[in-house]
């Protein structure tokens, strides 16, 4: 009590800080002010997030609305002469135009609508994975750091073992192990959930390790000791002090794993273990069977690839910027 009155300038400081914005609001303001590249990344990410989440309303056409009137097949002369031949001809699919900015796909569907809907799969899988992986990663990481001792040792050995598995083979295996259909969900939703579960299981140990090391630092910090000295119970220390202070690495981690999740979802779809057709996914649009139409319709292979690259690029830029702001020690790490 006496210390406060004898140091009035300190009291002012406290007051000023109380007036100032919350640290997480401050973070974004600082980001926009000092990190132009990361700001661009933030804009790109938000753009795709909005497009993905509101795909149904944003997409000009549905995914099952072929513009058959705009496609024509042109018989070549040898076939036309032979009346017994069925009408196999060269497909003429209109390319990008004002009406269809990304052209039509081989079935006559508006390709921009497909790309937007594909973005929804990517974005939903990304968000789901981040939520899954960060939640369990935080629980495991903080618990491991908090309890320490044998529990920590046990968990860390398991994490060690898990980290020896290369990502993509594990993902494919996990997606295969999970049942193909479940009663309580539509096929496409379940396929998405499966990828979220697989990616979540894959990344939870990674996340837990990073969060654990952050939590260990916080646990040993003086303000936790101080809180304990003031009589705070365990729950208060964990949820009131440790959790908020590991939020910084969690934000960076969440951003970077969002990009990774989108990339892996696309890879899985490309390999045929993603959301089954006719639901559009960026990876699925780039499978070989689709891309063989590249001679007639090169835009089919270009736009989904650009979409993936752009959103992941944006997220990585943002992640880099956030990491520089939040944890300069980790600068440059991937």
């Amino acid at each position, binding site marked *: 009590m006496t210390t406060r009155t004898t140091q009035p300038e300190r009291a002012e400081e406290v007051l000023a800080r109380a007036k100032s914005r919350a640290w997480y609001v401050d973070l974004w303001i600082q980001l926009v002010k000092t990190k132009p590249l990361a700001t661009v990344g933030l804009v790109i990410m938000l753009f795709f997030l909005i497009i993905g989440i509101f795909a149904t309303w944003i997409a000009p056409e549905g995914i099952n609305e072929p513009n058959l009137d705009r496609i024509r097949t042109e018989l070549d002369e040898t076939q036309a002469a032979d009346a017994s031949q069925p009408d196999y001809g060269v497909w003429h699919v209109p390319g990008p135009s004002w009406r269809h900015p990304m052209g039509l796909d081989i079935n006559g569907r508006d390709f921009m609508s497909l790309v937007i809907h594909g973005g929804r799969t990517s974005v939903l899988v990304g968000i789901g994975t981040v939520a899954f992986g960060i939640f369990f990663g935080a629980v495991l990481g903080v618990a491991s750091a908090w309890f320490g001792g044998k529990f920590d040792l046990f968990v860390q050995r398991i994490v060690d073992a898990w980290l020896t598995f290369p*990502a993509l083979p594990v993902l494919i295996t996990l997606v*295969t*192990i999970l049942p193909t259909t479940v009663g309580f969900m539509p096929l496409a939703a379940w396929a998405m959930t499966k990828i979220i579960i697989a990616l979540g299981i894959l990344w939870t140990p990674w996340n837990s390790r990073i969060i654990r090391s952050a939590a260990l630092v916080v646990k040993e910090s003086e303000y936790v000791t101080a809180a304990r000295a003031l009589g705070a119970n365990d729950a208060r220390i964990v949820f009131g002090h440790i959790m908020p202070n590991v939020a910084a690495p969690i934000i960076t981690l969440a951003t970077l794993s969002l990009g990774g999740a989108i990339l892996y979802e696309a890879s899985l779809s490309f390999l045929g273990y993603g959301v089954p057709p006719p639901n559009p996914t960026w*990876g699925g649009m780039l499978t070989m069977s689709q891309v063989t139409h590249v001679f007639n319709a090169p835009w089919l292979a270009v736009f989904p690839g650009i979409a993936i690259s752009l959103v992941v690029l944006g997220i990585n830029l943002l992640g880099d910027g956030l990491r520089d702001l939040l944890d300069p020690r980790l600068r440059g790490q991937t």
Partner: protein
Amino acid sequence: MRVYLLRRVLLLVPTLLIASFFVAGIARVMPGDALQAYLGAGRDVSTVLGERELAILKARLGLDDPFAVQYVRFIFGWTDKEGRVLRSGFGDGVWRQLGEFAADPVTDLTFVTNRDGWSVGKEVLWGSTDAGRTWTPQHKTEDTMNAVAAADVDHVWAVGDNGTIFYSEEGGRPTSEGGRRGSSWFEQQPGVTEHLNDVVVLDTETAWVVGNAGAVLATSDGGASWRSQNSGTSEDLQSAAFLDADNGLAVGANGTILRTSDGGASWSAVDSGTSERLLSVAYFGTKAMAVGEGGAVTQSDDAGVSWRVSNVSYVLAGESPGEPVPVGETLRGVGLLSDQRGFAFGDGGLMLETRDGGASWQRLPLIDQDDEPIPERDLEAAWPIVSERSGEYRYFVASSKSFWRWGAVGGNLGESLVGTRTVTEDLSRTLAPTLQLGIMTILLATAVAVPLGILSAVRQDTWMDYTGRTVAIAGLAIPSFWLGTMVILLPAVWFDWSPPLQYIFFFDNPMANLRFFAIPVLVGGLFGSASVMRMTRSMMLEVLRQDYVRTAWSKGLRERVVIYRHALKNALIPVVTIIGMQIPLIVGGLVIIERLFSIPGIGRLLLDAVRLRDYPVIQGINLFFAAAVLLSNLVVDMTYGWLDPRIHYG
């Protein structure tokens, strides 16, 4: 250094064990799908398979065991049996190996003439028409077969686990019905599911079968219908013998002996004088003899009404018989050739003969054609034939040897469900391209990324730095499958050229091999080099800010000296760690690269195995990848210590 190395290697063991635990779990969580692999796609397991078939299939795949058992078997191994059929020579004690039995133990064999015989074993019915010199597989069964018996050269029965009875009216010889070779064996329906242990055949119409839980079945119409007989016991019956259509004996667990004198219509238990499990019974005239576990022998001289246990000991056959040795081994079979002459056989290569009704026994030597005594082999079945020339008795024996079949620790990762190959064979077949691709990708990533990272750091905030960083961050964002697709397709569209898509082994044609790998390595290397480049740059930047670098500058040293001699060496240490961290990512990414460029590597193998739900292969690949990553991490750690003299191992 050596201590550290040892400790580091020892640390690998628990990590690898836990990793293998995850891998072994794959079999556990996909049993339905594993059965699906057997049935082929598009068929529902529950509709295709009845309860019995499901049980058989699960048992064969080892899926009905507890997880701990599955795990130990997968990692360490299990006791397996290897079988051989031997035939005794003319008193020289040398036994010759007959036929090729594909390592599966034969459980029973029988001959009706000196030439025609059959043998059964694990899921295969074999036949021979040349006195056992060659054996032909006649039929593949679902279950382990336990016994075979024949009425004449045409009519043969074989029985096995899960109530299986097979019958042939053509001696099991393959038929060529409608121009297609088929089996003349067909399954009869006894209407029970117990394991059947023995079959006794009297003539072409009459036969009895005994099995577990006191099961006794009889037929009098050549097996068209089997009727259950009331044995009055629930003990497992192991063996039966019939003198004629009325008088028969059956023996089984807990010293059970059953007797019938009305063809099995009624069975009565008699006191055997022992409580050991009796495994075999022989019947000749009024003489009967039963043998079992622990060397138990019990005999009857009044057609099986009263039995007396005899403690059997044997002397060696030949000129130096030696001291009598008591029999302690399990006796698996007994046979009577007359009321005086008989034989018994069992574990430890024990082959005994008596010429005085079982009062004294002598042991026949068991030496194989390579002059190797084979007492460690167990005898499963024996059959006597009389030599046409000398009138001497000769024996066929089915012998087996238990041995430890190593699991994953011995390099045995199981067998593919789909093909006939083992997983290890599959892996070694696909290893070369994957290894080459992986090593080349990592080398390329390092060779490109490290100089670029250094340049970027030294020329910080110049156009070079910005270009390098942009390329790197783009390299992280562009999916390799898209890049690969573009690399394959765009040159095809523009220049009518496409990269070679036919894999050639390096040592067959090095140039063609390198040309083939060039594009895949470039595509795969971009992702790896992007992160290595970023890491090198930031490490170099950190080092360049250190005091000793500033000192070097202030001493007036040239830039080259400062960069290469002072900064680079220190920056490289964490870069090595980063390269190590990249290895799992690059290895995982190979799946896509191999798929894109049709490289016949492990990644492609994995995709095929996943499509076919071939879970032993999936297990093997994941375990292999885990081991490979662990090993490369170890190598990276070693390099780390070698680069940084400050680290003292120990």
